[in-house]
């Protein structure tokens, strides 16, 4: 593997790991600070605070993506297309089950993001195995 790509991979692990650590810290801090806070701008800010480290993680991934070789970029992009189709299908199915009162999953929005990312990873593995 080219030295440049190896370095980019190491930097990504550091940046992504740092962002995820920050996410956990900010999340717990927000939950603690939000106790007893009434609805309003403060509560909204606390609710959205954990998004900031998620954005940092996305930026770290984007920098890594730009440094990948073309085949890896293609695998990531193709996997994104397949995952998005499955994700849209899953979201709308859950939505209909919810709106018809058949099935209620309280935290679906919160878990759907990680579900999409996990799905993306799984599809990437499948595409790499086919290669």
């Amino acid at each position, binding site marked *: 593997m*080219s030295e440049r*790509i190896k370095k980019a991979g190491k930097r990504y692990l550091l940046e992504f790991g740092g962002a995820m650590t920050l996410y956990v810290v900010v999340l717990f801090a927000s939950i603690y600070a939000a106790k007893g806070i009434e609805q309003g701008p403060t509560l909204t800010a606390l609710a959205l605070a954990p998004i900031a480290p998620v954005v940092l993680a996305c930026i770290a991934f984007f920098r890594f993506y730009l440094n990948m*070789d*073309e*085949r890896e970029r293609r695998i990531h992009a193709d996997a994104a297309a397949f995952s998005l189709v499955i994700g849209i299908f899953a979201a709308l199915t859950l939505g209909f089950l919810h709106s018809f009162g058949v099935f209620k999953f309280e935290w679906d929005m919160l878990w759907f993001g990680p579900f999409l990312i996990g799905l993306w990873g799984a599809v990437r593995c499948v595409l790499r195995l086919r*290669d």
Partner: protein
Amino acid sequence: MENRLKDLRAERSWSQGDLAEKLDVSRQTVNSLERGKYDPSLPLAFKIADVFGLAIEEIFIPEKE
């Protein structure tokens, strides 16, 4: 697309890692290229040709329709 990458690499006693370093790609990409599982972009094809000192059509064999 069929190609002569593996033979050309062997002639020069390069490992897949060596070739990956010269092309600035991952070793897996070199592996996929050699097995014909991945077709390079035009810039990468030119880079490959440059590394081996050959024309693109001397390395890659297009499929006959």
